[in-house]
């Protein structure tokens, strides 16, 4: 069953001069797949990720996630869609520094506003346990180490049971111990919980262990 599908996506940048950064990208991702997107720096991986994430709407072609066509939808609809269906993990953790670890994980669920505060708190603690950082739940988020913060960010990405988690260089800022830890967590999520994950990386070792590798070159998918 496919979770994400694109049809002939192209994108241009006009500054400093017109150039085509994405060329005719057609891609499908199935439920429970752990996919890595690799390629040389500057080949358009991040740009493709932002299009897939619905944050970038300036492209040609079509995007569909969880059976919903998202091309042409307005910003507010897309915000609500991201909140329910997509989890993000970036190279830098981007936790909100004034909030505790637990609050950071709870915020997307409170934004979604589907469950009671107690239910959300319970769910957030469960996610923190899965990621092995539950003992830090009540600390301010900026008191944790880089690896711990990235695990909290993954817990946050999971809180609304998204259809897909999108990661841009999720281990790019971690040492090898934490890189392995994060990789194992992703592996566990995809295999045990049927979580779909797409991760941009230029760590070949990391990529080689994923279910599927998509290679990009010069704005095209080559393999």
């Amino acid at each position: 069953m496919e979770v994400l599908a694109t049809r002939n996506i192209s994108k241009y940048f006009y500054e400093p001069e017109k150039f085509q950064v994405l060329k005719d990208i057609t891609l499908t991702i199935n439920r429970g797949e752990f996919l890595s997107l690799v390629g040389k720096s500057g080949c358009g991986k991040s740009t493709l990720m932002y299009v897939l994430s619905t944050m970038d709407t300036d492209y040609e072609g079509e995007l569909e996630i969880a059976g919903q066509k998202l091309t042409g939808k307005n910003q507010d609809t897309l915000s609500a869609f991201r909140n329910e269906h997509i989890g993000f993990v970036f190279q830098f953790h981007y936790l909100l520094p004034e909030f505790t670890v637990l609050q950071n994980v709870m915020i997307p669920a409170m934004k979604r506003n589907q469950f009671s505060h107690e239910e959300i708190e319970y769910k957030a603690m469960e996610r923190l346990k899965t990621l092995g950082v539950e003992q830090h739940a009540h600390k301010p988020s900026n008191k944790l180490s880089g690896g711990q913060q990235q695990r909290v960010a993954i817990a946050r990405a999971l809180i609304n049971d998204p259809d897909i988690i999108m990661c841009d260089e999720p281990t790019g800022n971690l040492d090898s111990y934490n890189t392995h830890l994060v990789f194992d967590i992703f592996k566990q999520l995809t295999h045990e919980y049927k979580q779909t994950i797409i991760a941009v990386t230029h760590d070949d070792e990391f990529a080689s262990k994923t279910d599927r590798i998509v290679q990009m070159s010069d704005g095209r998918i080559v393999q």
Partner: protein
Amino acid sequence: MLGSRFKLTLEIAKVHLLSKPKQTIIAMLGVTFGIAMFIALVGLMTGLNDFTEEITMTSSPDIHIYKDVTSPRKTILQQTNPGSLSWVHHQKPKNELTKVRNAYRIMELIRKNEMVRGVAPALSSQVFYNYGPAQLNGSILGVDILEEDKLFGLKSKMKEGRIEELLATREGIIMGQGLAKKLDVKKGNRIVITTPEGHTMTLKIVGIFQMGIGVVDNVRCYANIGTVQTILQQDPSYVTDINIKLNDRHLAKKYAAELEAKYNTKAEDWETANATFLTGVIIRNIITYAVSVTLLIVAGFGIYNILNMTIYNKMKDIAILKAMGFAGGDVRSIFMIQSLIIGLIGAVAGLAIGYILSVLISKAPFNGGDIISLDHFPVNFDPKFYMIGVVFGVITTAVAGYMPSRKASGIDPIEILRGQ
């Protein structure tokens, strides 16, 4: 459902404010200072305005009828050659009496109008009060003292003696307190007055009054109208002024014009007579609002700056919030709430400080001098101004917060996330 979503934006706004307490307090103090100044200023200014208006209005008639000898009249040349092109330069007033013709008949007719609360005749003249070798310039007002009381509440203005004593004493006067003080005389003393025509008369002081306005208390005496007619050697129909009080003084302007046309005399309404005083009121109001608005604009710029700084520092947070599904409107309300909280708390603190300042001002001793009899500042505590203060404060902060909040809502998360 909407409520709990608002709770989340409110919670985030609160955390932002509390994470930079110093900055938040400084922004609030700006608003506090502006509102406190507004409350103190407006309280003092309107207090003074109301006080002077009160004494001016009670001591002056709504309509004053008199003969205006300086009003332009037809020259003899024009009368003898009607329609001709003639011009007379520097025409002087005729030597004529300032008498209002048929005064008692006019008063009778005016009294019949149901708009009218009271009508009183007066006969005024310049006089010199002889004080040893010195002479003090002043005026004597011949009145029907009971009618005069009905119009101007003279009874309550008496410092010594009673107005009825004037009725019993044909050659008595009731003297303004300032004048009595200058002449160093008391109730029961006799005083010699001289008219501009050179007639003199000795009068007995039967009472002292105080209106509270220097221009009256320092120069005026009341006497029976007959007494003044005798001093001036005029007949009993000689009246120079008719004073009218209306039930609604806002009708004065229209009614005065009517009277002027009907009786062919000058009829001046209180607005025209007190034009300078009323301009003063307007100017004081302008100053009050100008100063307060200026202070609030400065406070507004403070909030604008601080919010811009917060948003600049929180670019990454805003980007991640948007990535996680916060809409532009949610981000805008996070920052609008911050500025409104600053505005509301700042304004309420401003009201409290403004109130304390007003109380202190109203307790401070103040000498009104010769102009008005005052020993403390009159301060207005009208709750209306406290309402205006809060509304002012909140509007200022809303306006100041709007631009930065809109900017925050328009932040493109990709630009921020890519930049890292």
